[in-house]
């Protein structure tokens, strides 16, 4: 009833600005997709919606258009809708992409996108520079180098926007420290990428980095696919460390019964496990200088620390750890009344909001939620370390009680009388 609310002349509202941004989505262009793989986000979201999950139809369609725009704007090899993370003041639409080989942004470019964060915990703004404080003698262990674009936790790059049609912003690469620290904190995101993260332990970076770390954790834990969909490349040498796979052209879709088997044998992880170290590929944290270009491929076996290992790629889910005593995954059909054309839905109980559907030869992952890992126990932040002792108490220095006024007076009287 358009006419029922005709009362005031509206000012140019935020809504209009939003809509104007969105209008760019609907500009029509020649299709020219060649080899670029753009997931049909609207179709996947239709499947999720048929299971009572996901987002509304109009937003889904806008996301599809926004992702196509992203694919046009950047030299990408593939791009898909990763999910939507809710924040306190705004939300993030997240796209996962891979650059075309050779088109990865240069390190300088990366560095620009990244805020200062390679140091040890000075990412906190507005706290420093109050007065010259005594210098701590604490010397941090040298940071564990992050994985490069295309490898491990940085295998994919992530772009976020506040809503479909807003500018896509590339998130910085994630560092092991960020992942380790993100595991220890529970934090709502604000929706502003440049927001400071105020937490203990202090997070090495701003919200863009925390968001990226959470995406890395969620991705590592929840990107699953029907067993057999992906396979290792035959040409690849078959040792433990295989970290790439291809779509099996001969994949015969799993039956619904197989996918619904509570033993979870029908599903595998297709993202590398994130080691406690905060990397997917373990690196020896010896204090030697690493050459960034080489550390991935050469196995320098300085056995100073024990190598961490995780489950290999394409490992079935049945070995996944329980979530607070409950199964890690819940399985169901998308439809109870029309099972013939229903899809199978697998939902992570570790990261509520992460779902995967599989129907026929198609599947997709999505995450829609606050970016918070499930926990049934009440969170207690890590306690700050004990304060350091001020001075070593020894022969030269000992602590004494301050004299009382009576003692001082007695002392003064003694001096005078002496």
């Amino acid at each position, binding site marked *: 009833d358009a*006419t*029922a609310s005709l009362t005031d002349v509206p000012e140019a509202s935020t809504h209009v600005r939003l809509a104007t941004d969105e209008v760019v989505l609907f500009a029509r262009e020649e299709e020219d997709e060649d080899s670029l793989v753009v997931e049909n986000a609207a179709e996947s979201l239709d499947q999720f919606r048929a299971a009572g999950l996901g987002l509304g139809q109009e937003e889904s369609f806008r996301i599809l258009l926004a992702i196509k725009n992203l694919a046009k704007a950047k030299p990408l090899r593939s791009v898909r809708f990763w999910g939507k993370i809710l924040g306190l003041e705004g939300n993030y639409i997240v796209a996962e992409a891979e650059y075309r080989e050779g088109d990865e942004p240069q390190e300088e470019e990366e560095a620009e996108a990244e805020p200062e964060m390679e140091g040890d915990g000075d990412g906190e703004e507005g706290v420093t520079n109050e007065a010259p404080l005594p210098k701590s003698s604490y010397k941090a262990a040298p940071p564990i180098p992050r994985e490069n674009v295309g490898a491990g936790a940085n295998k994919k790059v992530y772009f976020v926007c506040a809503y479909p049609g807003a500018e896509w912003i590339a998130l910085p690469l994630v560092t092991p420290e960020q992942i380790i620290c993100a595991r220890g904190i529970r934090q709502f995101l604000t929706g502003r990428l440049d927001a400071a993260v105020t937490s203990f332990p202090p997070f090495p970076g701003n919200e863009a980095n925390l968001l990226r770390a959470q995406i890395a954790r969620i991705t590592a834990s929840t990107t699953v696919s029907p067993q057999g969909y992906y396979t290792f490349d035959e040409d690849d040498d078959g040792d433990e460390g295989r970290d790439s796979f291809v779509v099996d052209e001969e994949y015969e879709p799993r039956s619904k019964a197989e996918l619904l088997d509570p033993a979870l044998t029908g599903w595998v992880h297709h993202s590398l496990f994130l080691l406690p170290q905060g990397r997917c590929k373990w690196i020896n944290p010896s204090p030697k200088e690493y050459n960034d270009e080489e550390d991935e491929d050469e196995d320098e076996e300085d056995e100073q620390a024990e190598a961490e290992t995780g489950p290999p790629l394409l490992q079935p889910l049945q070995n996944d750890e329980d979530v607070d005593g409950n199964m890690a995954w819940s399985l169901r059909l998308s439809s109870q009344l029309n099972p013939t054309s229903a899809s199978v839905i697998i939902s992570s109980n570790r990261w509520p909001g992460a779902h995967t559907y599989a129907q026929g030869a198609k599947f997709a992952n999505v995450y829609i939620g606050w970016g918070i890992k499930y926990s049934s126990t009440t969170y207690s932040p890590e306690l700050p370390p004990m304060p350091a002792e001020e001075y070593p108490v020894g022969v030269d220095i000992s602590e004494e009680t301050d004299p009382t006024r009576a003692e001082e007076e007695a002392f003064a009287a003694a001096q005078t009388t002496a």
Partner: protein
Amino acid sequence: DARMLTTGLDCVAGSGIVLSAEQRAALQSSLPTLQASQRFRAIKLWGRIVALSTEYFIAQAYGSDLLDPTVFYSSDCSVWAQLPRVHPVIVEAASKIAGRFQGDPAHEYSVTQPAPAADAPPLNLPDEVAALRKTVDNMVTTTLTEEMRLAATVSLVDFEVAVVPYRAFRRNPDGTIQACKSFEGLTPLEATKLSSFYHFRRPTNSASESKNPAIDFLDPITNDLPKTSWSLQAERGSELSVLRSLLWPGYVFYHVPESRIFGSFYSGLGTRNNDLVFMLP
């Protein structure tokens, strides 16, 4: 309202009128932008005229006069062009065009009608309208574009079948019309009666003998001829009243009784059903 797009479309879906997610997403962006660009008070999607090679979506934007909207059309729900205001003689000529819309706004139609009698008062047409008419042998041939026909059709539909529920609008002492804030919806019983619905147009029956001129100022649709030029049905039980025009098939008005939710949508060929009298049982 653009805001009520989903609710409204939900109410006409049972009549076979749906828009795709793509169209709805585009409208949700383009209509507010269009509204703001010219500071309209409100904008609504009027409907869709299905041409042979495209679909014309029609939006109406309102300033202060609810009965005098500015009309826009689009074939992709995204880029909008304003429709010309057409003179009544053009509307009259356009109403004589038989056949489908072609899909090309520049397509030209010729309509030949008998010229007015020699002793008729002169029409005093504006130059640009007169330029479209050519009189030969007592016959007037009017040449008009599909864009003009589109504009004429929208105004014809509005005049002939646009309806509102009783009490939803009031006339102020100065003659302006506004939404009635106290309107709480028709009762479920009222919503089953044609007499609860009124033409949303400047009343043709000016000598209204109504007792309450602030409320009873619109023409009731029960005066329409033929009497059964409407199909009123309750959908989903009494949760939704749907009033379909038989004169302009494709015009669907909906109202959720006991709520302020009402509106209409036209989705059709843009042709008047001149066979109506023969088609009734």
